[in-house]
């Protein structure tokens, strides 16, 4: 059992332990019985499984990005699935019955990891549209239900970045649900669903374990008189949906989908009454992470030495040991030193020494560092300059950048940069860690 020597104040530790033990008695758990009953929601396979989503899968509309613990929910519709947004509709929808929701001319909203990044970095009309729940909801309704009117005065913004905007169209009323998929300072409001005042189905507890995806459907409204029709697609192909364990509350159904790595998965759930009317439709989508890629073999080395003036690119692998010490110096919270070997091709090796100071982010998520380095060739020539590091603590990995400012010998006057894709090896002893990875350099003089 390993415990790091994080503190030398035993009295403080004892006080902390005592306080936690004391406060633990604040709660008096009332353990409910193990849930044993079946879910109250009847789940059936849809009678017809039309391939209505294949065309839009490539458009990457309505993407929910699952990246570790970060989950962004987003709803979306496309030309081929305008009916998948919430609201009453018949199945099959008679062509002469005007739908509240219209066929779209464009995929909306534009959501997804890349699209969101683009919105943030390049504010434009869409960013302005999504900057407030009012404008996002109004735009959404204008796109999918031109006859509907948003009741912006009735908008409710919750404390956790959710919002609802009521809407009406004749006698029909409903709610558009939104979520801030951005941050407080740069909000990006996306539509996560829309519901009428019938049965409401919301997704929750979505999690991914490899290619197995679990999620919950929380159903509110009448407990009987409808069934849930569940369809799932992976890259446009039908995917298997199966029951998960019962939820204690009796109104939540746990379901599971299995999909290939990297697949765009979409799930459509409709509450349908005996007459075939959609009481509610909910939709979500997500992209499974790609299979971790095998490390790339290093490129064949270019000439590692500079002969005369010109530029050289080289790449290879590196391995070394990084020592670190916590300090009381606010300008150098974590003092590092690195001693590594860069291998170019199969045989040529350079040595790398560096010292740098790291600062930890407030949430202890990352360490950024800056310092100096020296690269030494087998012949004793050197390259030196500034080292910049950005390490994600969850994986203890991140790029190290070497900015070459000067050189000696054959590299006199050289400039350029190297990038080390550094990752941590096995759990190290305290204050020391082994690193390895690949590197590439572009150097000229």
């Amino acid at each position: 059992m390993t415990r790091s020597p994080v503190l030398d104040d035993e009295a403080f530790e004892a006080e902390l332990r005592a306080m936690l033990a004391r406060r633990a008695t604040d709660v008096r758990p009332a353990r409910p019985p193990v849930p044993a009953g079946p879910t109250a929601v009847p789940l059936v396979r849809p009678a017809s499984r039309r391939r209505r989503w294949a065309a839009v899968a490539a458009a990457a509309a309505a993407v929910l990005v699952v990246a570790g613990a970060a989950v962004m929910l987003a709803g979306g519709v496309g030309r081929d699935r305008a009916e998948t947004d919430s609201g009453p509709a018949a199945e099959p929808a008679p062509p002469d019955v005007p739908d509240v929701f219209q066929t779209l001319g464009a995929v909306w909203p534009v959501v997804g990891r890349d699209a969101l990044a683009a919105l943030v970095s390049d504010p434009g009309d869409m960013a302005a549209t999504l900057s407030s729940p009012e404008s996002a909801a109004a735009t959404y309704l204008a796109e999918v239900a031109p006859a509907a009117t948003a009741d912006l005065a009735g908008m409710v913004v919750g404390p956790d970045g959710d919002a609802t905007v009521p809407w009406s169209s004749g006698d029909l009323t409903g709610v558009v649900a939104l979520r801030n998929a951005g941050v407080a300072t740069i909000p990006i409001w996306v539509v996560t669903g829309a519901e009428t005042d019938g049965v409401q189905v919301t997704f929750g507890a979505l999690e991914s374990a490899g290619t197995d995806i679990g999620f919950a459907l929380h159903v509110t409204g009448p407990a009987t008189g409808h069934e849930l029709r569940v369809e799932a697609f992976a890259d446009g192909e039908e995917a298997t949906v199966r029951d998960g364990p019962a939820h204690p509350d009796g109104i939540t159904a746990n379901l599971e989908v299995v999909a290939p790595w990297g697949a765009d998965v979409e799930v459509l759930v409709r509450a349908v009454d005996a007459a075939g009317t959609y009481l509610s439709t909910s939709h979500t989508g997500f992209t499974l992470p790609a299979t971790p890629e095998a490390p790339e073999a290093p490129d064949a080395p270019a000439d590692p030495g500079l002969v005369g003036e010109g530029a050289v690119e080289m790449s290879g692998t590196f391995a070394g040991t990084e020592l670190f010490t916590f300090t009381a110096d606010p300008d150098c919270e974590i003092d590092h030193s690195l001693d590594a070997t860069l291998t170019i091709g199969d045989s040529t090796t350079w040595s790398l020494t560096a010292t740098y100071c790291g600062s930890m982010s407030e949430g202890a998520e990352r360490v950024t560092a800056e310092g100096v380095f020296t690269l030494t060739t087998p012949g004793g020539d050197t390259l030196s300059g500034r080292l910049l590091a950005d390490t994600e603590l969850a994986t203890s990995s991140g790029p190290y950048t070497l900015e070459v400012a000067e050189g000696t010998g054959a590299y006199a006057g050289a400039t350029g940069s190297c990038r080390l894709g550094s990752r941590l090896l096995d759990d190290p002893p305290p204050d020391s860690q082994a690193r390895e990875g690949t590197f590439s350099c572009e150097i000229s003089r």
Partner: protein
Amino acid sequence: MSAVPLDPTATVVPWDDDLVLLYERHYDDLVRLAYLVSGQAAQAEEVVQDAFVRTQRSWARVRDPLPYLRTAVVNGCRSLGRRQVLERERRPRPPEPVPFAADELWDALGTLTDRQRAAVVLRFYCDLPDAEIATALGCRVPTVRTSIHRALAKLRKEIDR
């Protein structure tokens, strides 16, 4: 992972006996853990119940159920914590607190980040080794050390020792 096909007659996947045993033996402890990590008594039981349901869902893949449950509880608490941050940002600034001496350290816990607080509770309440804390937090051992190191420094600063 259950393999029950989606079918009108499909009903329920019963809990595995071992999970029921875990539920009976560790439910109370996990609720206390959830309370200490989240600081929210009202949500602690909900977090733990959800953790058991998630564990049941993944039961076939779970090799070490108790650490798995502990991780699920900590993750649930961190989700609560994220919502708390948003609430705090949107809430008018409260008057300067005048803490009771007996709760000074407890209040100081509230100044820690989610990860720091969880690491402190897992270390000083659950008395877990670094490796198990790292498992529960989904991070590496060095991250545990740095989190605890910074948390303790912050706690000491908060209570002006």
